């Protein structure tokens, strides 16, 4: 017989349709309208998981998003496996495949459960106290072991094939919660507001009215009125999970997980970012479990949850029910469950002022023990006179009263106060624009308090396996603040954020500390209210859409000619152009030697470019760079360094004078953003007297370098009418010309040490010019070269790269560029700092070259430099390697380094310790090749 606990009539399920599903491989049946939890209960299944720390058998506790125990994995096909979902929130569909978690080899027989015999050995703070030594063992032994034994579901391994959407929305009023109070609030708001959004985490609106047959007509009436209003938007399956400043609320809408995978289409989830003028929280209240030994057995549930399963889902949790309570609401549950066919064996009420209910067997007392292994079989009641009474049952319901669901209010920095009449925390100080209605505001039935015995099997936080004994221990060990007790015991720190456990934990801590509950205070809730998938946050920002891709003008050519791409920020740059059967190293060596012997062309379009214009341009440059530009003639260029106000190098580049009041400036490829920010900052807020304008023209110009002894031949063939010669266009000068009908800026400059040019043309002409240049180079036995070859070529010359040779602590003098500082000019950014003691001191690290004494030896960038080959532990390093390459030109390994008193150490032998042993190196000048620069003049 299937669904033996299904009631024959009533409720909100569709008995006409049968849905098949599986749980841990066993086949079951349910109906549309079921949650996975209700369908399992209809089939008599209570045991659904094993607990986090002790692997204790656990069952379904609640009927909503507060569920601490019933976490399962849903498998919807490759890449669509989702762990840690609450069975109480999963809507049943035909073919649903669910598995339990944290058990091996099976749910009924779990090896890890052996851990529970040792549960007294794993009290609060156990990990902090036990696994202290040796430090390495934590990473390699303890943590992997603990992670394997204790855990939640497994993360899926395949890429997620689903899509996710993002939507922004603005509204006058956002109502969170679709219960009767929320629906009323939305209707009231709609009378005045122009736009109302109501979001509700359940599949259908109604909240508590969905399981209260007496309110069915009231509910349908409310919904009819709301649905007739076009300015009210109702979002179902939508959780408000985060509240941020100025009424900014994040909602996660689940669009297709409730549909069988073959029929689902469109995005899986949608992230709503809502800015609301007013927010109404109608998030209801959460029933508290009672704390007693063995309160975590499957079959022990919240009283209202049982009522929901019986009334709404028509699944009877059990047939012989004991109810333990300190709240009046449990008596309604008792009545409904008896009408549904269950026997209410007893109601055990802890309160003095319990209601009169002659038709029930009401016992004044409390539960002190439970019986059963994987399902409750009975419990022991302690009566008021101290005597005990054993009672058999198949379900034990508990209700410790209700706590307003103030998670979102807490996120919005609202304050709570303890309400003695209700024995719980209720909203007190509301942030501007936020109000609470209904149970969330503390509008609750009469309820009292029950005792919370200290016992190692009396669970408070089911999801993190925290017991009342753990909290008492934390207090005994000196923890006072509830926030510290929370962190030490981990109570309320699981994925459910302690929705069912926080109040019990606070009350136990207050009792153990002998202070009033209002003096211990409530812990802070944080986003997300319930877990949100990574996909929801990522939205469309995945794969190619993760970040904009910037491509060089030569991109297509490079793709067709063996270009090996590397990411440099958003740029796709080319490391080298590999020929068939060529290794990367061979390729780089070939490109380097071709530039040195013939000619090479390089796409430098990613260089940042700024056009500076205005009558005070020279003044501005003099204040921003260390160089003196007063004497820079029109048509001449200068290598320039820019400092941070603290005196360290910020960026470098070439400043070319186009006209009296006009400059073409280059920055490093990665530097354009912060360089322009830095310049604008000073221009707008310090040098407001200067009439200067800055424009980022990085995207406007394609830039190609032509370098090598034959570079002049290529430029001559490209621009035969320009009359170019060494005299008319000397090194570091610029000419504005026309090529192919477009502007062209030709600069004689070099970043390789060879005679060379940089050509700028409008980006639209870039690909055409690149093809022309490569063609011309190849006819001269030249080639295109990539970033790797460029790095070798510049390292051979000791040219620095900002960010490679500099790290935010390096000055111009450290790099050997101290003479570039304009001595005759006035103040500039960073100048004052250069005379600060720490920048002017002796012993600073300076740029030098390193050559390994044995030619075959290599080491890595970032390696440390020491005096002795095997320095004693604790010896400080003299410096570090910033650049290390095989130099094809010199046929040996070379490196640049920052070294203490480096220039004074030239000629010394030092050591670079590497894992395979220390490598002896000679300190040299950073310029390895052509030190007098004769090649620059071709």
């Amino acid at each position, binding site marked *: 017989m299937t669904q033996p606990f299904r009631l024959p009539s009533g409720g909100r399920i569709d008995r006409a349709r049968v849905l098949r599903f599986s749980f841990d491989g066993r086949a079951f049946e349910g109906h549309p309208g079921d949650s996975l939890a209700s369908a399992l209960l209809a089939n008599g299944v209570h045991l659904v998981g094993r607990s986090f720390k002790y692997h204790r058998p656990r069952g379904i506790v609640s009927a909503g998003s507060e569920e601490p125990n019933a976490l399962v994995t849903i498998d919807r096909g490759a890449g669509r496996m989702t762990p840690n979902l609450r069975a109480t929130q999963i809507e049943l569909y035909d073919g649903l495949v669910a598995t339990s978690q944290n058990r091996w080899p099976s749910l009924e027989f779990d090896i890890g459960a052996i851990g529970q015999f040792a549960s007294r050995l794993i009290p609060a703070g156990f990990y902090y106290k036990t696994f202290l030594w040796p430090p390495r063992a934590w990473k390699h032994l303890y943590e992997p072991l603990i992670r394997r034994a204790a855990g939640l579901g497994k993360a899926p391994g395949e890429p997620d094939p689903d899509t996710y959407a993002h939507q922004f929305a603005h509204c006058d009023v956002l109502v969170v919660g679709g219960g009767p109070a929320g629906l009323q609030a939305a209707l009231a708001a709609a009378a005045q507001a122009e736009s109302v959004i109501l979001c509700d985490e359940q599949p259908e609106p109604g909240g508590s009215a969905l399981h209260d047959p007496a309110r069915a007509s009231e509910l349908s009436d409310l919904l009819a009125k709301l649905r007739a209003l076009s300015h009210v938007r109702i979002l179902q399956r939508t959780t408000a999970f985060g509240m941020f400043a100025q009424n900014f609320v994040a909602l996660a809408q689940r669009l297709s997980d409730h549909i069988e995978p073959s029929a689902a289409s469109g995005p899986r989830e949608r992230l709503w970012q809502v*800015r609301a003028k007013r927010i109404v929280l109608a998030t209801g209240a959460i029933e508290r479990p009672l704390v007693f030994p063995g309160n975590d057995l499957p079959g022990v549930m919240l009283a209202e949850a049982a009522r929901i399963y019986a009334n709404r889902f028509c699944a009877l949790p059990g047939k012989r029910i004991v109810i333990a309570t300190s709240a009046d609401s449990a008596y309604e549950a008792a009545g409904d469950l008896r009408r549904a066919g269950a026997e209410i064996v007893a109601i055990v009420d802890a309160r003095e002022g319990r209601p009169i209910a002659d038709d029930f067997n009401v016992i004044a007392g409390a539960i002190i023990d439970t019986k059963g292994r994987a399902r409750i079989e009975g419990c022991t009641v302690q009566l008021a006179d101290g005597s005990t009474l054993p009672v058999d049952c198949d379900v034990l319901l508990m209700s410790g009263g209700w706590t307003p669901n103030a998670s979102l209010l807490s996120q919005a920095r609202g304050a709570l106060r303890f309400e003695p009449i209700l024995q719980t925390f209720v909203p007190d100080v509301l942030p501007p624009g936020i109000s609470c209605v209904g149970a969330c505001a503390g509008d609750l039935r009469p309820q009292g308090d029950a005792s919370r015995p200290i016992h190692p099997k009396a669970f408070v936080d089911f999801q993190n396996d925290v017991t009342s004994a753990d909290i008492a221990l934390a207090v005994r060990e000196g923890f006072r603040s509830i926030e510290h007790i929370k962190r030490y015991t981990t109570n309320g720190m699981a994925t459910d954020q302690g929705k069912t456990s926080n109040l019990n934990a606070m009350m136990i801590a207050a009792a153990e500390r002998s202070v009033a509950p209002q003096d211990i205070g409530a812990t802070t809730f944080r986003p997300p209210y319930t877990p949100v998938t990574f996909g929801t946050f990522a939205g469309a920002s995945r794969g190619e859409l993760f970040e904009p891709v910037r491509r060089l003008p030569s991109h297509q050519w490079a793709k067709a000619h063996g270009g090996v791409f590397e990411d440099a920020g958003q740029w796709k740059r080319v490391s080298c152009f590999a020929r068939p059967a060529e290794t990367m190293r061979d390729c780089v060596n070939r490109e380097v030697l071709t530039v040195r012997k013939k000619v090479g062309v390089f796409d430098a379009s990613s260089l940042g470019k700024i056009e500076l214009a205005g009558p005070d341009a020279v003044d501005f440059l003099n204040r921003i760079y260390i160089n003196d530009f007063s004497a820079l003639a029109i048509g001449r260029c200068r290598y320039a360094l820019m400092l941070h106000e*603290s005196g360290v190098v910020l960026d470098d580049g070439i400043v070319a004078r186009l006209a009296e009041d006009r400059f073409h400036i280059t920055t490093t490829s990665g530097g354009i953003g912060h360089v322009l920010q830095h310049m604008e900052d000073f221009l707008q*807020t310090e040098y*407001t007297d200067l009439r200067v304008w800055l424009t980022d023209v990085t995207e406007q110009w394609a830039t190609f370098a032509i370098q090598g002894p034959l570079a002049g031949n290529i430029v001559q063939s490209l621009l035969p009418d320009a009359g170019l010669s060494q005299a008319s266009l000397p090194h570091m000068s610029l000419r504005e010309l026309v090529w192919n009908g477009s502007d062209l800026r030709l600069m004689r400059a070099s970043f390789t040490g060879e005679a060379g040019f940089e050509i700028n043309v409008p980006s639209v002409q870039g690909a055409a010019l690149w093809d022309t240049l490569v063609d011309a180079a190849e006819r001269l036995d030249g080639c295109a070269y990539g970033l790797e070859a460029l790095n070798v070529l510049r390292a051979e010359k000791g040219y620095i790269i900002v960010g490679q040779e500099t790290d935010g602590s390096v000055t111009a003098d450290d790099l050997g560029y101290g003479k570039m500082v304009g001595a005759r000019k006035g103040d500039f950014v960073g100048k*004052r700092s250069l005379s*600060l003691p720490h920048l002017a001191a002796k012993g600073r690290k300076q740029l030098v070259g390193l050559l390994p004494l044995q030619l075959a030896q290599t080491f890595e960038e970032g390696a440390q430099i020491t005096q002795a080959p095997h320095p004693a532990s604790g010896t400080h390093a003299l410096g570090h390697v910033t650049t290390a390459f095989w130099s094809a030109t010199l046929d040996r390994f070379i490196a640049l380094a920052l070294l203490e008193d480096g220039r004074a150490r030239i000629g010394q032998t030092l050591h670079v310790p590497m894992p395979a042993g220390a490598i002896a190196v000679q300190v040299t000048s950073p310029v390895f090749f052509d030190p007098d620069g004769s090649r620059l003049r071709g």
Partner: protein
Amino acid sequence: MLLIRCPYCETERPELEFRYGGEALLERPKDPALVSDDAWTAYLWTCKNPKGPHAERWRHVHGCGRFFNAARNTVSDLIVSTWRVDDSPPANFDGGGA
């Protein structure tokens, strides 16, 4: 996400369009060569970091590109007012603590 009013565009825009620029109302010495090492170091590195109202710089980097000043309460995280760099702070702004 904060809503920030750009005093140049005169519209309230989401925080995504802006970039934080550190403490405001700092005065760079007219002639840095004349100030002591201590005074210069304090100008560079010593921040107020107050609890409460704080004058700070923001740039409407994905809008008009202008730097402006804002008074933000570091407790509530709310930006109380914004003003152009050449305007004075609002009369009721206490200057951001000691």
